[in-house]
């Protein structure tokens, strides 16, 4: 029983990063009804810049670099929206292209170096349980970001503007809301959140130039479990995915352990209608 509890706690710490990666996907989906798969690349860029510069300034510069990368997709969105037709698939493809481009750029600049900073070492002893400080910090940061997002989305004017844009962009535009500005801000905020996930990984489990697509898919997996329209659901999805992964790795044989989390996602999506209306084009 104690072992199970330890796996669950470990899974929550791992899942917190998945949850943070899912938040930008949720935000961008909420306002633009498309998906920014480049979150994993923002994470990598933030980690590379933070590692290169070092210190607090490195962290700030890393987050800035991640936002700068997301600005590329703002530009892409503006261009795509000028064209007639559905821009969403093109935007998704562009974001995957950005992942490949940024991964290659990092490889070219830094080679196959693994980005891992061991300065947040140490463990907390909770009775017989041992939990790493880095993981606990990840969870705390994840919960804090979620709380901030919830406040911004549901308690502030900016949040109302975002939700209005999401519900009906034309009506929002007629009401004086500058929809393109809202969409651009959301994508930039996604870059910031993706960069934050990268910083958390840099100080906990590490990443390298191969990580971005894996991270993007981990975030996407977390986001779709309970529906992408609510950041809270996305974050909880990340936590649960982390727990399923940890329990699978702890108890299942090697042959199926890595398959179980994806089977879990499939199962939930098959039996649950959470988020189905959203995918069909309805508004929250």
């Amino acid at each position, binding site marked *: 029983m104690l*072992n199970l509890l330890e796996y669950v706690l470990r899974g929550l710490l791992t899942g917190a990063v998945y949850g943070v990666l899912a938040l930008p996907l949720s935000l961008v989906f909420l306002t633009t009804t498309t998906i920014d798969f480049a979150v994993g690349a923002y994470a990598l860029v933030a980690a590379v810049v933070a590692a290169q510069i070092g210190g607090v300034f490195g962290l700030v510069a890393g987050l800035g670099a991640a936002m700068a990368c997301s600005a590329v997709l703002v530009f892409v969105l503006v261009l795509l929206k000028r064209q007639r037709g559905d821009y969403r698939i093109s935007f998704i493809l562009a974001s995957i292209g950005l992942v490949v481009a940024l991964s290659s750029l990092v490889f070219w600049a830094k080679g*196959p170096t693994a*980005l*891992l900073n*061991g300065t947040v070492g140490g*463990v907390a002893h909770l009775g017989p349980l041992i939990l790493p400080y880095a993981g606990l910090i990840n969870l705390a940061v994840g919960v804090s970001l979620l709380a901030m997002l919830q406040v911004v989305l549901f308690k502030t004017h900016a949040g109302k503007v975002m939700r209005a844009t999401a519900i009906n962009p034309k009506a929002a535009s007629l009401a004086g809301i500058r929809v393109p500005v809202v969409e651009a801000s959301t994508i930039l905020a996604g870059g910031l959140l993706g960069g934050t996930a990268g910083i958390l990984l840099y100080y906990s489990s*590490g990443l390298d130039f*191969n990580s971005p697509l894996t991270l993007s898919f981990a975030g996407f997996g977390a986001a779709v479990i309970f529906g992408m329209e609510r950041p809270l659901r996305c974050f909880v999805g990340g936590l649960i995915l982390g727990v399923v992964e940890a329990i699978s790795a702890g108890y299942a044989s*090697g042959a199926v352990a*890595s398959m179980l989390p994806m089977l879990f996602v499939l199962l939930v999506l098959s039996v649950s209608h959470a988020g189905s209306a959203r995918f069909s084009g309805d508004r929250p």
Partner: protein
Amino acid sequence: MNQPTKSLGAMLRHIAICALAVAAPGLHAQDTKPPLRVGLVLSLSGPAAAFGIPERDAIQAVAADVNAKGGVDGRQLELVIFDDKTNPTEATRGVTQMATNEKVVAVIGPGTGGGILAAGPVAERLKMPLLAPAGTVAVTDKKNSFYPWIFRTIPNDFTSIRVLLSAAVKNGAKRIAIIYQEDPFGKLGMEHAQKLAGELNFEVTEAVSAPQTSTDLSAQALRIRNSKPDAVFVQLSIPPLGAAFIKSIRQLQVNVPTYVGLGLSQKAFFDAVGADGEGLRVASIGSLAHDPSPTEKKLAALLAKNGKVPTGWAELAGTSGLMAIMAAARTVQGEITPEKMRNALETTCGFPVFVDAEPCYSADNHDAWGEDSVKITVLRGGKLTSR
């Protein structure tokens, strides 16, 4: 009367000068032998670039030195480079291009076991010997129809695993836990370690896998801790994965000797694992990057001359391929063709390399590298040191 004689003499001199002028280019051509063209199909991008780039750099450094000293029996080395992108399809394309367009005499590569297995049938069809810088056991399996064309340039995985686990048992380990990555390298290594358990007299307490794309291995580390091993064997090759695992077992205070396979014997892993890697026992082909032997120092000097810093065993793997080709070329009579090169490689034995070992190819043994080529080193202060 003298006039005709003078004219005849002058004419003979002219004829002699003309004959020399005509013959000179031919004589010159006989002195200058055609170059020895060697193909490099290495992983210069993608996950295996950590090995491919230093392999290329070291081969280029050695080739430049050989050429400066007059080449291989008067033949200048010409390197033709192709990036297989850590992709078996690209590896196959690279070997095809080397054989059909570039007319090389042998190829060093492809850069990964998967790439070599994919390119093997092509090498067989186009009759192109491949010098394989990979430990994947299957590449020199005699059941492969392309076996005659593949020659390994590093010890195979089973050899290095055996050396590592023998050292663990010798140091008192009776209960060994295994972490491996979910790919042929990891799975075959884990299965071989389990087979060795009976022979070397140890028990496998747990064999835990991790996907290559894992971002966190704390659950796997927890499972290993719960199995109460007295040693851990790490069969991973991806630096962040290895570093994350070592960090996790350190956090869980699993303070038993940890034996790391050849796959992680690379600078990227040592840099990433940092202080948590202190005391790790690491299988390696020498210790070029940190504690080079006198033989390895020669290669380190060549790399330094070319502005390169040694990273690990990849430089040794790559240059061993080139040294084998050079040794074989010296034994070939007349024009060197890929087929003659293959035949010569099969009789190349005890040739000089930058590794403290004596590789020996034969018709029955394309592995060449014995247990003497694997060293157990210890990671101290971020550097591999001989024990």
